[in-house]
C-alpha cells in the first residue's frame, strides 16, 4: 500500500452539517476530511472505500442511551441517541460527508483493530475492489471505562491507546507501507506513516 494522505482529530474539532452527530462520528469525519484533501471524491474518484476500526466504539453514546432508559423509561428514549450508538454511524457520516458510495465497513477487535483494517484494505486494493481506501481509527474515553480499567483485565492494546481521538489514512495500491506484525498504538502508527 501507498499513503496518499492522513489526518487527525480530537473532540474539539468542529464539523459542518453534523448537528446531531456525537463526538465519535464528528472526530471520524474530521480526521477523514483532513486525510482526503487531495482526493476529488465528487467527480473523478469513484472507487473509494472506507474501513473504520475501533475497540470500544461510541460507548459514550451508548451510556447516554442508558441514561435515557434510566431517567425516562423505555418508551421515552431518544431515537437520535440510539441511532448514533450503532457502531457504523460514524462510517456512514464519513460516506455522506465525502459522497463515497463504495464499500463501507466498521470493525472491532480488542487485539489489533487497526492492523486488521490495513490487512483488509490491502486485500481490497489487491483485488481491485477499491482503488483507494480511507482507514479511520476512532476511540473515546468515558468514566465507566476509565473506572473499569482499574478493576478489570483490559486487553494490553487498550492500555496503550485508550484515549479520545481519531486518525485517518488514505491508501492506494503500492509497496510503500508494510503491514507490521503488531500496531501497539494506532495514532502513533498513522502519524509515522
Amino acid at each position, binding site marked *: 500500500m501507498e499513503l496518499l494522505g492522513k489526518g487527525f482529530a480530537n473532540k474539539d474539532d468542529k464539523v459542518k452539517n453534523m*448537528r*446531531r452527530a456525537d463526538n465519535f462520528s464528528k472526530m471520524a469525519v474530521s480526521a477523514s476530511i483532513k486525510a482526503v484533501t487531495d482526493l476529488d471524491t465528487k467527480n473523478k474518484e469513484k472507487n473509494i472505500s472506507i474501513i473504520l476500526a475501533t475497540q470500544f466504539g461510541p460507548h459514550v453514546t451508548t451510556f447516554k442511551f442508558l441514561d435515557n432508559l434510566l431517567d*425516562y423509561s423505555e*418508551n*421515552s*428514549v*431518544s*431515537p*437520535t441517541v440510539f*441511532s448514533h450508538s450503532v457502531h457504523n454511524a460514524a462510517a456512514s457520516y464519513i460516506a455522506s460527508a465525502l459522497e463515497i458510495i463504495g464499500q463501507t465497513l466498521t470493525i472491532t477487535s480488542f487485539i489489533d483493530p487497526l492492523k486488521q483494517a490495513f490487512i483488509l484494505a490491502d486485500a481490497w486494493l489487491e483485488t481491485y475492489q477499491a482503488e483507494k481506501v480511507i482507514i479511520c481509527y476512532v476511540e473515546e474515553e468515558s468514566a465507566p471505562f476509565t473506572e473499569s480499567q482499574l478493576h478489570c483485565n483490559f486487553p494490553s492494546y487498550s492500555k496503550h491507546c485508550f484515549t479520545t481521538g481519531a486518525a485517518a489514512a488514505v491508501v492506494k495500491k503500492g509497496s510503500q507501507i508494510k503491514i507490521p506484525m503488531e500496531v501497539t498504538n494506532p495514532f502513533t502508527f498513522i502519524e509515522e506513516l
Partner: protein
Amino acid sequence: MSEKQTLDEIRTRLKEELIENLSLEDVTPEDITNDEIIFDENGLALDSLDAVEIVVFLQRIWGIEIKDMEQSREILVSIDTMANYILENA
C-alpha cells in the same frame, strides 16, 4: 392564566426543546416563526429522524401519544399546529 398565555408558553417551550433536542445550530427561539413549516427546506429543514425525536419529546414533556407517522404528519407541521394539539390533548 388566559388560554392565549398558555399557548404562548407552549410555543416558547416547543422552540426551546426543538433547538435543544434536535441540536439546531445557530438558531434561537426568536428565529423560529410560529407558522413556518418546520420540515420545509425554507423552514428548519428537518427530516424523518427529527420527526421521531419530536414525537418522543412531546410524549416525555406533555404526555402526548402520537400513534403512527400518519398522525404525526398532521400534527408536526408548525409550532402553531403542535402547540394547539398540545393545548387540546396534554
